[in-house]
C-alpha cells in the first residue's frame, strides 16, 4: 500500500464531520434508489438490468462496428468525429480549434472523462479560460480539487466551506445560505455561458444508429453548454456507444433511478449534429471526440471487458461499505468506489496503487446494485491475482539483481574471490567426494539454487585451483 493511500484513508477515518457527510449523502442516494426500483414501482427492474447488460455486452463485443456506424451518422448530419488516443490528442484538438476560431472562453458541463484527462488544466496552461458549470464541479474547480463522488462531486463540502471558497475566489460577501450561494454561481456562470465561444460536454450515451450524443443532467448547465456557444465539442470514451436510439427507453429508465433515485433526470438532451438549416438556435459546429486513453487495453480479456459497460451512475459507491468509510479522495484516481477500484488499475496499470483491488471486502453490494450488472467482485479478484503475479515476478527479479551485484563485487575483489572459491569447493566436495555435485548443504539448497540443481549437476571441483597451481609452479 502506498503511503499516500494509507494516509488519505486515515485522515478520512479520523475526520468525524466528513464521516458523517459521506454516510448521510450516500445513505440518502441509496434510499432514493431503493424507493424507485421497488417491486411495486418498477416491476420489470431485473428484466431491464438483464436487457441493458446484454445490449452493452453486444456493443462492446462489436465495438469497432458501432464506432464506425456512429461516425458515419454524425458526419451525415454535418458533425465531425475525431478519434483521440490520449489526453494530449484531445487538448491539442481543442487548442488548435480554439486558435483557428479565435476562441478564449470555454464553458464545460460535468464529465468524468474530461476529469480523467485533466482537460481544464491542459487548456488553462495554454491561456484559455475553461469554466466548469455544474454547481458542484464549479465549486471544486474554484477550490482546485477533484470530484469526491461520480454524481455528487462536492459531497464533502459544507455550506461553510462553500462560503469560504466563493468569498476567496470570487470576492463576494460571505454567504452561507445555500439558495443564495446557488444564485451567486448562477449569475456568474450565466455571463460565461453567454460569452463563451466553445462548450465542452461529456456524453452519457452515444447512439450509433442516429449519430447522437445523449446528455443527462439536472441543472440545465448541460443544455446551456451545448446550446449557447457557437461550437459544441463532446468528449466521450469509446465505450459509451449503444446501438439504437430506442435502446434509450431501457438505459434512461435505469440511469436516473440508479444515480439519484429520480424517474428521469430533469434534462435529457439528444443532440445530433449542428443546428440545421432554419433551426432557431443551436451550435454551428459539432464535434465528438472519441477517447481511447487505455480503454482498448481492457478488451483483450472477455472477463475484464465488462468494466466498460459502466454508465457512471455511482450506485456502487453508495452501496459500498468501504467507500462509505474511506470516501472519494482516498482513491488514487478520479474514479472512486468499487468501479474506481476496477477501472484505475486497468487504465493506469496495477502499479499505480497495487493495494487498490484489495480495498474491498468482496461483499458483493456493488454487483447487486449495478444497473448493467457488472460483476465487480469478479473483476477485483482477477486484478488481485494479477497484482500477485506481478509481485512474484518482481521479487524474483530482486533476488537475481542481488546475486549479480554480489557476483560483480566478488569479481573485483581477488582475495574474496579466492576465498569464496575455496568455500564453494569445500561445500561441494563434502557432498559428492569427487563425483558430480548433485546437491549442496541444506542451508543453501533452497529457492533458485535448489531449482537450478534439480535439473542440473555440477562437475566436481578440481583438487587445486588455478591460483594455487600458479603460486606453486
Amino acid at each position: 500500500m502506498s503511503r499516500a493511500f494509507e494516509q488519505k484513508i486515515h485522515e478520512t477515518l479520523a475526520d468525524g464531520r466528513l464521516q458523517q457527510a459521506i454516510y448521510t449523502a450516500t445513505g440518502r442516494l441509496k434510499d432514493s434508489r431503493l424507493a424507485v426500483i421497488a417491486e411495486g414501482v418498477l416491476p420489470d427492474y431485473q428484466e431491464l438490468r438483464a436487457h441493458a447488460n446484454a445490449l452493452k455486452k453486444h456493443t462492446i463485443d462489436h465495438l469497432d462496428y458501432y464506432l464506425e456506424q456512429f461516425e458515419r451518422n454524425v458526419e451525415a448530419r454535418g458533425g465531425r468525429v475525431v478519434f483521440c488516443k490520449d489526453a494530449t490528442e484531445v487538448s491539442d484538438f481543442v487548442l488548435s480549434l480554439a486558435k483557428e476560431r479565435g476562441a478564449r472562453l470555454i464553458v464545460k458541463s460535468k464529465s468524468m472523462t474530461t476529469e480523467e484527462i485533466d482537460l481544464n488544466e491542459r487548456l488553462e496552461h495554454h491561456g484559455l479560460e475553461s469554466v466548469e458549470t455544474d454547481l458542484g464541479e464549479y465549486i471544486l474547480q474554484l477550490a482546485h480539487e477533484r470530484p469526491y463522488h461520480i454524481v455528487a462531486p462536492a459531497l464533502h463540502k459544507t455550506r461553510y466551506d462553500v462560503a469560504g471558497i466563493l468569498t476567496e475566489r470570487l470576492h463576494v460577501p460571505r454567504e452561507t445560505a445555500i439558495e443564495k450561494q446557488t444564485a451567486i454561481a448562477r449569475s456568474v456562470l450565466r455571463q460565461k455561458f453567454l460569452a463563451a465561444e466553445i462548450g465542452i460536454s461529456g456524453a452519457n450515451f452515444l447512439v450509433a444508429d442516429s449519430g447522437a450524443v445523449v446528455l443527462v443532467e439536472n441543472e440545465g448547465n448541460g443544455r446551456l453548454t451545448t446550446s449557447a456557444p457557437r461550437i459544441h465539442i463532446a468528449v466521450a470514451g469509446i465505450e459509451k456507444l449503444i446501438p439504437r436510439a430506442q435502446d434509450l427507453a431501457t438505459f434512461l429508465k435505469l440511469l436516473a433511478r440508479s444515480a439519484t433515485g429520480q424517474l428521469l433526470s430533469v434534462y435529457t438532451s439528444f443532440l445530433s449534429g449542428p443546428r440545421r438549416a432554419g433551426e432557431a438556435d443551436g451550435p454551428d459546429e459539432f464535434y465528438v471526440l472519441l477517447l481511447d486513453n487505455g480503454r482498448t487495453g481492457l478488451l483483450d480479456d472477455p472477463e475484464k471487458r465488462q468494466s466498460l459497460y459502466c454508465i457512471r451512475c455511482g450506485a456502487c459507491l453508495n452501496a459500498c461499505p468501504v467507500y462509505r468509510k474511506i470516501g472519494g479522495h482516498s482513491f488514487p484516481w478520479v474514479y472512486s468506489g468499487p468501479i474506481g477500484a476496477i477501472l484505475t488499475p486497468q487504465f493506469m496499470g496495477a502499479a499505480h496503487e497495487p493495494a487498490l483491488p484489495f480495498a474491498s471486502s468482496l461483499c458483493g453490494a456493488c454487483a447487486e446494485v449495478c444497473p448493467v450488472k457488472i460483476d465487480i467482485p469478479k473483476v477485483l479478484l482477477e486484478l488481485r491475482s494479477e497484482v500477485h503475479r506481478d509481485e512474484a515476478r518482481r521479487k524474483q527479479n530482486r533476488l537475481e539483481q542481488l546475486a549479480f551485484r554480489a557476483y560483480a563485487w566478488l569479481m573485483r575483489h581477488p582475495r574474496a574471490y579466492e576465498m569464496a572459491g575455496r568455500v564453494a569447493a569445500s561445500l561441494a566436495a563434502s557432498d559428492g567426494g569427487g563425483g558430480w555435485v548433485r546437491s549442496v548443504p541444506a542451508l543453501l539448497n533452497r529457492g533458485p539454487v535448489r531449482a537450478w540443481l534439480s535439473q542440473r549437476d555440477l562437475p566436481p571441483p578440481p583438487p587445486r585451483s588455478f591460483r594455487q597451481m600458479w603460486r606453486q609452479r
Partner: protein
Amino acid sequence: MSSREDILHRVRTALGRPEGGPPPAPRPVRLRIPETSLESRMASMIQRIEALAGRVVRVPTPAEAGAWVRRTVAGKQAVVSQAPFLAECGIRDSEDPRELRERCAAAEMGITSADYALADTGTLVLLSSPREARLISLLPPAHIAVVPCNRLLSGLEELFSVLPDPAAAASSMVLITGPSRTADIEQILVRGVHGPGQITAVLVG
C-alpha cells in the same frame, strides 16, 4: 497510422474481429407500451409534475389556454416561440427588434409548446425547429409549455416507438422533467440553478 486507424485496429485485434464485419443483430428493442386512457395519462401527468414542484393547469379549449397565458404573462417580459399550436391558442410574441438570445436572457418567462408529453414521468418533450428555439425553455427563470392533450403519451417507451430516431426530426430533442435543480451543496434541494426554477404545463383539451 492515424489515431482513428490505430484505435479501430486495436479494438478489432483485441476482439478478434475481421475488418468491417457486421455483427449479428442485437437483442430486439424492448418497448412495452401500456394501454392507458387519456384520463389516466392526464392524472399521472398532473401528479408527476406536481410532485416535482411544477404546476399543471388544465383548460378545455385553445382559446381558454390563450386567455390563461395572457393573464399570467400580463405586465411581465415574455418570449413566445413560433409554435403553430401557440398561434392556434392566440398566444403571440411581442414585437421586439432584439436578437432572440438577448431577449431570452432578459425575459422573465419563456413560452413554448411541446411536441409530446410523457405521463408516467411528468416530462415535456421539445424538438428544436425553426419555430421552437432551444433557449426559450432554458434562459428565462420561468417556463410555460402549452400542450394539446392528444400529445400526451404514456412514457419513454411510447415516445421511442412514435419517434424511433429523434435525429431524423431535429438536431436537438430535450426531455424536460420538472424545474432545473441541484443538490450539490449538502444535498439540499435548490431549484432554478441554471434552467428555469418554475415550470408550468398548460394541458389543453
